């Protein structure tokens, strides 16, 4: 790994902003031990540490991507603060109220970043459920078209539809079903 490349926080942020996966990978590997230690010393497991850390990194990543990051401290502190908050929430959900956290780092009071992240997580959770309930080939069809942005013609060929109209019709039906599944579940949880 080229360590010298991402020596500073600025370099990492710049790297992520330009979609450099190596910057993200470097960041990920750099701070995982800290969060892992924090979670493990506050009654968490390795898997929980991984989940919490990834959520934290996602928050950071999306902030960088959307240029809404106003970093007044080190990335390390920011990540720690986000993960700390997420973990507190997780503990509360588990019914274990941590009266005292075993803090290894300073942390910030993040009022706005984390709730947004939680809302997104919920929405994506619902979406994932809906997608899974949809079944094949609808799932792949929709993913190919809307997520991987593939050409309708390619999709038609691959799925073996007679023409694009049939494919479009199929896609429409799938979308209707997804819409129903998604909104029923989403509204229910609001």
């Amino acid at each position: 790994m080229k360590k010298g490349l991402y020596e500073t926080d600025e370099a990492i942020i710049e790297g992520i902003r330009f979609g450099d996966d190596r910057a993200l990978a470097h960041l990920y590997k750099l701070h995982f031990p800290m969060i892992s230690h924090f979670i493990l010393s506050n009654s968490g497991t390795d898997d929980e540490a991984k989940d919490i850390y990834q959520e934290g990194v996602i928050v950071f990543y999306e902030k960088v991507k959307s240029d809404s990051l106003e970093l007044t401290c080190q990335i390390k502190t920011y990540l720690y603060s986000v993960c700390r908050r997420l973990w507190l929430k997780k503990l509360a959900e588990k019914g274990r109220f941590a009266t005292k956290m075993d803090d290894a780092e300073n942390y910030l009071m993040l009022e706005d970043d984390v709730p947004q992240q939680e809302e997104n997580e919920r929405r994506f959770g619902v979406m994932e459920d809906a997608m899974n309930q949809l079944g094949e080939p609808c799932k792949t069809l929709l993913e190919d078209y809307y997520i991987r942005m593939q050409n309708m013609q390619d999709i038609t060929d691959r799925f073996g539809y007679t023409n694009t109209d049939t494919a479009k019709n199929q896609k429409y039906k799938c979308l209707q079903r997804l819409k129903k599944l998604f909104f029923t579940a989403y509204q229910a949880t609001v």
Partner: protein
Amino acid sequence: MEYLMYEQMERYLAGKMVADEKAAFEALLQTDLRLAERLKEHRTLLNTMQQYGQRQELRGKLNAFHTEMETENSSQQTPKWQIFWKRHAQTMAVAASVSLLSVFGTLWSVQQMKEPVKQQTAHYVELRRELDKLKRAQTAIIKDINNTTKPAPRPASVSGTGFALSANGYLVTSSHVVEGADSIMIENTSGAKYKVSEVYRDQVHDLSILKVEDAGFAGFSKLPYTFKTTESDLGEMVYTLGYPREDIVFGEGSLSSTSGFQGDTTAYQISIPLNPGNSGGPLLDDKGNLIGVISGKQAGQEGAAFAIKSAYLLQLISELPLATTLSPVSLPKANTLAGNSRPQQLKKLKDFVFVVKVYN
């Protein structure tokens, strides 16, 4: 076909419509509220789906990093016990401190409980009486103020008991009473007061022979008791006279053991409550035989007092003429106490029991 409608919406959302088509569609949205509602729904759905896709992709990347990192670290993986230790360090620390606390707490409390026992077993108290130092100091000051010209006689610092051995002025007391004495005075209840000196001492058996030194001393009257040469039996009724305070005090009990403190065979154990000042007092049996000399008691245990057996006193008396140039002690031969009631015995006896005052 309905899906055409959706295609139109998607094109509108993607911004692919040309200007006039877009204007027409927007006009339609203004009028058709149902369409507007659908459009909103559709936008949410598509956005969510796309963000979800991105998120999945990101997750995938992060997972890839994670596995990559794990394989990198696998060579230097922290051992299992270390993970275990990290996770349970706090609990173990608490457990360890609790156990330490209880161990030392137990040790401490056991020791606390043991302490009085230790005291009971180890202490032998000599029954000489230390006179009240504070009171003495105070009276000395008062006297000093009142009468500066004539120095008052110094009061005795220690007192004990002693009794006559023979009519020609020999007495015996405990040697710890007269230890380090400058001058010794004896006095009995009838007011007879003599100056005496220590003439012989047996440190081992804690006995001292005293002799009256006064020039005007005409000798005691005939001694009413005799000295027993053989050992007395367990359970015999015994009594003593002594000066634990200013006046003579009688104490009665039985011979509770033929050995003394910690198995000392030169002494008896007797069940008479004794106090400091009793040291050197005579121990007599019912028939008026002198069987021992009071010497001490065991601290913390009432009714366990000790007296040196008379055999050792007699041995000491027999050594006296050999060791010194003094005339031999003529021991009394007739016992006039036997058969008398106890008060009668005491009446005869008390003139021969003296308070021994030691000045130094």
